């Protein structure tokens, strides 16, 4: 029945701070075997007495299929609301339920083309694993990491190990270039001759990654972060308007048809002010008078 997805009780075996984030390692037997970069896991939060019913989703930072614990999964968590605060307060040997791997991974190029990987904040979490997979195929890997401040960057050191170049930007200039990833991205793409740009981070960043990639003649593959109630495809809360092969726009579920989409397929024009409207030309869009 599981078709590659497992639901396991995950024991936390390591938790450490990483700048503004927490890096957690859970035992998750059977999960690693099927996981690929860009996929995510959904964790229950709050324990048995919790009022927080919904799972929280996190990009898989990495997996290790075997070892002392028989398979582990790593995630990088930013303590934001009730659930992530609970997760980051866990101590070793605490447990939570894990479902994964979920969603579609980053597609890997069939040829050994140069690639640029862009991560915003904790959005860099899945990129190091992706970098390794790309380099195994002979692709040159150039990493661009951006965040508001140095503390909100993740994996700069790790990046230097697994990428050919690492470019860092911070809004406040506390590390690397002062400014946004989109300021440096055109140069990195041009210098590397990249054919593919992978992005993971806030929606605004993904949109500019898509635009810059298009302008430089590269394909953008972006992992979006939509509010998810189930993570497994059954609730329809995580949708966004995406143009299909047939040219038609549909509201598609980012948890099963994403989170990775080709950037030029996403209808960025529908997003504004924290909302996403249904484009008027979308399949089944509400007509005047409302449905």
């Amino acid at each position, binding site marked *: *029945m*599981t078709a590659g*997805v497992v*639901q396991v009780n995950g024991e936390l075996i390591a938790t450490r701070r990483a700048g503004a984030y927490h890096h957690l390692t859970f035992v998750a037997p059977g999960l690693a075997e099927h996981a690929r970069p860009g996929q995510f896991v959904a964790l229950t939060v709050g324990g*048995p007495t919790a009022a927080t019913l919904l799972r929280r989703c996190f990009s898989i930072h990495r997996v290790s299929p075997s070892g002392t614990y028989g398979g582990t999964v790593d995630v990088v968590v930013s303590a934001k609301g009730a659930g992530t605060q609970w997760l980051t307060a866990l101590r070793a040997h605490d447990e939570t*339920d894990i479902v994964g791997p979920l969603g579609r991974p980053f597609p890997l190029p069939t040829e050994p083309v140069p690639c640029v990987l862009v991560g915003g904040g904790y959005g860099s979490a899945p990129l190091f694993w992706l970098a390794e997979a790309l380099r195994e195929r002979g692709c040159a890997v150039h990493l661009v990491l951006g965040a508001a401040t140095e503390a909100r960057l993740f994996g700069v050191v790790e990046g230097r190990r697994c990428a050919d170049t690492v470019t860092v930007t911070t809004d406040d200039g506390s590390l690397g270039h002062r400014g946004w990833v989109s300021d440096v991205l055109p140069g990195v793409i041009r210098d590397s001759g990249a054919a593919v740009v992978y992005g993971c981070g806030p929606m605004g960043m993904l949109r500019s990654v898509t635009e810059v990639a298009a302008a430089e003649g590269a394909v953008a593959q972006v992992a979006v972060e939509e509010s998810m109630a189930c993570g497994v495809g*059954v609730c329809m809360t995580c949708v966004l308007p995406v143009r299909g092969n047939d040219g038609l726009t549909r509201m598609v579920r980012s948890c099963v048809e994403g989170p990775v989409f080709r950037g030029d397929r996403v209808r960025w024009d529908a997003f504004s002010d924290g909302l*996403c409207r249904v484009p008027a030309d979308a399949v089944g869009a509400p007509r005047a008078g409302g449905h």
Partner: protein
Amino acid sequence: MTMLESAVGVSAATSVDMSTDLGGAVLPSPMMTASGCAANGRELHRFLDLRELGAFVTKTVMAQPRSGRGTPRMAETPSGMLNSIGLQGPGIDAFVTKDLAWLRSVGARVLVSIAGNTSGEFADVAARLRASDAFDCVVGVEVNISCPNVANRGLVFACDPLASGKTVALVREQLPRDIPIFAKLTPDVTDLVSIAQAAVKAGADGLTMVNTLLGMVIDTDLLRPQVAGVTGGLSGPAIRPVAVRAIWQVRAAMLEGRLPRVPIIGVGGVRTGRDALELVAAGASAVQVGTAAFNDPGAPARVGRELQSLLAERGFARFSDAVGVAHERIA
């Protein structure tokens, strides 16, 4: 949390007859998914065998494809959530050829949830369903006359006995007599029994209770409604006491003869076998698990196993003996 509530009685549990009779449709188990909380089966089938359920309940389908609303579509709330999906779906024609056919192919028993913008559209959807090749896996039709998400609150059929009755009657005409139809009611009414009466009188073979409560969450940073649809449907354990009360009231009205005795499908806040037992003891002949499946995708099947154990521990030989039992135990 996701464990069996009780390890004891497992062998006894297997001897509890879990079958239930829903207005002619006899199902091997009272457990079901809830409409809109299990998509159309494929995704959940990764976590549980759909044949283990008494019936799989599909996402409400309308005549035409619908994009649903913009986002955000949800907010977490204490022990629950608010959703404002706007009945996104492929439309009945794509539904029967793709989704229903697939459900049939895996051997699922299917309760198809339908809706329309007008009573006539409900009937149209029912007719196209009936005409479909995969219709033989359909064990019943749930008439969703109570979705609070659809734009015009004035159009919530289940707030008005007349509109409810008319819709049910038109759907009833389109379907063979051996296919029971269930009217799905909202608890957001002053007099639930009068709506139930109208639905049953118009030909509903049973009632599904309850749909979500109309609710709202405000984003306290942006100081505006958190879901794009402004209001939304409240679901999850938070609302279970309302579901139990609704089932209790309608069952009591049946016992008092104010309404013919028809089966009730209970839904609202069920997460464990104990929760399911609450709905059953109040009068539910079947139990749907909705929002809890977002927490535990295996929940609809797990809850059934837990329920079976609890019934065994309490000495029930048949599930059906527990239906409405709390009405016999009040002083």
